[in-house]
């Protein structure tokens, strides 16, 4: 038994070039499978943890997915706004602990601008209930002060003290609010959420920017200089969305019903967890297709293993007959071939894991900055063990076929191979 396995090892070593190529194929396909699974699960994780600690997201009546898209992901735009008096009523509701108004619509060089209050920095949570942290500086306190997310700062090279101007609308080359520049007073630490790609200013600043604007363009003949805006009432008349935290989570359904039936104007309140799941469902197809495709690549890799072993078997017919004459039974030859296939599979998996580890080391920072997906550091997380086991099981299955062929061949050939 041991002797046969030692011989199998030596025989495999003699064919190391061919088998090495198969090992590479399996390593690459395993790494691909694991990488897809890693990105998939971590993307989902990042996604579902985009916002936490917020009990309800409120907007004008629309679809819950749309509401999440613009209120949380700052993508797309609201068709309707919430009136400020509704905000005041909801914020005063006895079940409500805090309410953060959000106002969207402007941008800075492609990054969305979010008008909000300082309460945002205090109550907004992401990931596992992590608060926003400042990498540098402080929250805004004056009208023309801004706090930028980490990705904005990194990509545009901004530091505390830099001055920026905002553009109206989301177009990169939209009309500029050039007369009212902002000073960056804070840079947020990376979160892996859309917060990183957002410029935060106060609600009052949003109002101030648009004092001399109407219908998406500056009013001709009217220009209110930045230093004079404080003379105006900067209380917003409407906002885009409202994040609500409750005193007790038990009230969430009651308040949701209350808001959805609010008489002042048509509103929609959604629970972020539920809506994010719903949104993920729409993306889930792609995710599952990707996983299925990479599983297929693994199957192709293992089919290559089987083909290589089977093709080699014809050339090794003599070898098997010699072993047979020396006393090896058909079972031993079966074991020899199967062990070889299994060895190649295991080596392929090991190299695949190593490849993934190296890939993660270099690729994770890129994914984090480009896509906001934070990849977990540990190597064998969640489904990955299961996937590796499935690959191994499939590899074993693929190796049984040449093993079985060797068995049959040795019985048919006897001591003198037919060729």
């Amino acid at each position, binding site marked *: 038994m041991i*002797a046969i396995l*030692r*011989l199998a090892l*030596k*025989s495999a*070593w*003699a064919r190391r070039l061919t088998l090495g190529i198969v090992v590479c194929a399996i390593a690459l396909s395993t790494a691909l499978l694991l990488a897809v699974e890693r990105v998939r699960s971590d993307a989902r994780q990042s996604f579902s943890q985009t916002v936490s600690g917020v009990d309800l997201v409120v907007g004008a009546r629309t679809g819950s997915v749309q509401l999440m898209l613009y209120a949380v992901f700052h993508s797309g735009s609201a068709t309707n706004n919430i009136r400020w008096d509704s905000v005041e009523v909801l914020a005063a509701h006895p079940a409500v602990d805090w309410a953060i108004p959000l106002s969207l619509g402007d941008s800075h060089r492609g990054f969305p601008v979010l008008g909000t209050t300082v309460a945002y920095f205090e109550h907004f949570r992401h990931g596992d209930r992590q608060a926003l942290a400042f990498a540098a500086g402080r929250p805004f306190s004056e009208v023309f002060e801004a706090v930028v997310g980490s990705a904005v700062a990194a990509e545009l090279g901004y530091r505390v003290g830099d001055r920026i101007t905002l553009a109206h609308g989301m177009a990169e080359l939209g009309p500029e609010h050039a007369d009212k520049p902002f000073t960056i007073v804070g840079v947020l630490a990376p979160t892996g959420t859309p917060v990183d790609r957002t410029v935060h200013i106060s609600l009052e600043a949003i109002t101030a920017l648009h004092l001399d604007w109407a219908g998406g363009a500056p009013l001709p003949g009217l220009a209110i200089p930045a230093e004079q805006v404080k003379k105006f009432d900067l209380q917003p008349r409407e906002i885009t969305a409202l994040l609500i935290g409750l005193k007790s989570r038990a009230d969430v359904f009651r308040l949701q019903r209350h808001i959805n039936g609010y008489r002042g104007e048509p509103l929609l309140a959604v629970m972020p967890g539920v809506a994010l799941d719903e949104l993920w469902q729409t993306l889930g197809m792609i995710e599952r297709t990707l996983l299925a495709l990479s599983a297929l690549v693994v199957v192709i890799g293992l089919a290559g293993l089987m083909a290589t072993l089977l093709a080699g078997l014809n050339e090794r017919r*003599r*070898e098997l*007959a*010699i*072993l*047979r*004459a*020396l*006393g*090896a*039974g*058909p*079972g031993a030859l079966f074991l020899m071939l199967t062990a070889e296939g299994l060895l190649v599979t295991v080596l392929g998996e090991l190299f695949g894991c190593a490849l993934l580890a190296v890939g993660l080391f270099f690729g994770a920072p890129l994914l984090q900055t480009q896509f906001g997906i934070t990849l977990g550091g540990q190597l064998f997380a969640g489904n990955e063990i299961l996937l590796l086991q499935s690959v191994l099981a499939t590899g074993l299955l693929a190796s049984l076929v040449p093993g079985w062929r060797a068995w049959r061949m040795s019985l048919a050939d*006897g*001591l*003198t191979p037919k060729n």
Partner: protein
Amino acid sequence: MNGSAIRIADLLFRWPRQPRPCLDIPAFEIAAGERVFLHGPSGSGKSSLLGLLGGVAQPERGAIELFCTDITRLSARVRDQFRADHIGFIFQQFNLLPWLSALDNVLLPCTFSATRRQRADDVRAEAMRLLTHLDLAPDLWPQPAAELSVGQQQRVAAARALIGRPELLIADEPTSALDAPRQQAFVDLLLRESGAAGAALLFVSHDDRLAAHFDRTVALADINRIDGAASA
């Protein structure tokens, strides 16, 4: 040594899915230590007979006794072990595992048979002794078998068959790849070594020019009642 090395009685063998049997041998015997030349044209059933003697194939009927053990009554696993313990095989060419060194090829039977390992005592020393005895230069021993000449390979194969002193040597056309002068030399080598080891030798070939010097010459057609040419 007394008794018989091989005793076949009332043997009938047919390959699976063949309408006619290819071997029908009423009686055939080789005494212990006897050196027999068995000749017959290709297709006359020589390979089938060797398969039966090796215990790789099973007859439809009859007994094959090797050293008083009827191997047809043994299980497949025990037959494999019996072959490993008692028979040394030498084939035509491509006798060796190409990826093992000459020395490791000689040692192979000892990994499959504890009996032969014990009889060889110090297996490496015994392998080296046999290789030296068969005139294979020590600098060739560590070389992969694939790099040896055909003549060298056949001598390694002979050493492998001889290690652990099996009681029966079976050679199947071992000289067919050698040129004429070397053929006779190799036959003489086998006769000498089997004689020295006291092993019975069954030398199978279609070329009866090599039959001189054997104790006995047998034509397969004489012991087999089935006409090989007709069944092939």
